[in-house]
């Protein structure tokens, strides 16, 4: 099969690319589109480092074929901040030292944004379960969850 021509929207920008049938959105983001903020940790949907949103739905980009991006709206880590203004979630991650090596951070930030959109007032247990698919090996999750709860409270206050 010749390469597939895909038109999609990434972080609000119209984007087009060619892809093989077996390439995933993760492959295309990192290789074709040079958006390397989304990370590859396992390629089997077990670590969450490649988390993005597709039509506002949180997914692992390693488990979405690039061809499926046609006509969809994709959100990656690069689209979370508002130009030079960090999102509250990103700010709280920094304040709470919720990252050490930082490799899981992009996937987590995207996932937390999805969590708080769906559930603006999560309990600690709800947040932990929602984020179960985002592995972190450095922090033990403590400061991540504190950052999430603080971000949720701040965002509710700002709303």
């Amino acid at each position: 099969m010749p390469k597939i021509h895909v038109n999609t929207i990434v972080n609000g920008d119209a984007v087009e690319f060619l892809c093989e049938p077996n390439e995933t959105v993760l492959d295309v983001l990192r290789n074709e589109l040079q958006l390397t903020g989304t990370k590859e940790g396992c390629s089997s949907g077990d670590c969450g480092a490649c988390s993005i949103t597709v039509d506002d739905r949180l997914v692992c980009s390693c488990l979405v074929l690039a061809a499926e991006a046609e006509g969809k709206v994709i959100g990656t880590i690069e689209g979370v901040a508002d130009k030079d203004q960090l999102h509250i979630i990103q700010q709280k991650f920094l304040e709470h030292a919720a990252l050490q090596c930082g490799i899981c951070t992009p996937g987590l930030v995207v996932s937390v944004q999805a969590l708080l959109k769906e559930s603006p007032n999560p309990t600690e247990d709800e947040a932990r379960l929602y984020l179960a698919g985002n592995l972190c090996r450095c922090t033990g999750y403590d400061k991540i969850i504190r950052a999430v709860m603080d971000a949720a409270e701040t965002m509710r206050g700002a709303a």
Partner: protein
Amino acid sequence: MAITDYKMPQSLDEAVQILASSGKNIKVLAGGTDLIIQSKSQSSDPLQVLDIKSLKDMTSATIDGSGMSLGPAMSCAEFTARKDIKAVFPGLVEAAYLIGSTQVQGRASVGGNLCNASPAADTIPALIVSNAQCIIHGPDGERTIAVEDFVTGVGTNCMGRGELLAQIKIALPAPGTSDAYLRFIPRSEMDIAVAGAGVRITLDSAGCCTDARVAIGAVATTALLVPEAAKALIGTMLDDVALDAAANAASAASKPISDRRGTAEYRRHVVGVLVKRAAKIAAERVKGE
């Protein structure tokens, strides 16, 4: 199998027609959370995928007086958010909710979980106790199979070339009925079920069990309907004696293996524990209504 071709049919008929004429290396793509991983395996056999999420009926669900009709490719995230379905089929919804992380939920589907036919699939025991019916479309028309007959072995189902699971239909349960699904995993999420149990209970106004269905998963090559476990519950008040008998029947019916996720004896023991606990939860749900 490396994916070498990607198609999106515009109608169910077109899907059937493509499947019927494409040789054996074609698979239906729903959420892809099993298929895409499998396609990265070492074998480089070519694989065509047919993305049926383009068909609206495959990704939506309705529930009314005649029952529930579920599009097999509807994402678990959407399915489990349906409060109207959860009110009637809490066990099925909780089974679907257990498939993987939030990210996997955004893609995985009940139909995909069923068709992939892993012995440990979470939705299958719940579908079985719900008496789900599988509506299959193929070159020779439409046919209906009870879900407990749909899966034929490890990773295999009863569909032939050109056939496609088009709908899952579940009749509304009798009043006083509820269900529950429990699975055992070593962590709190993310793991493949070591054992799974779906239980549906009907209680009369006195709290006596008048009907039951028990199905177990991850303890045989396919999920198993266990009539003996149901029989142990029917006519009882679901006291400990009855529950233990059901648990023992479930353990006795299981044919588990030992692998990287658990030993056979462990699975045999735990599936009984889960049946007992799921029965209690189902009963509490009935009483809570």
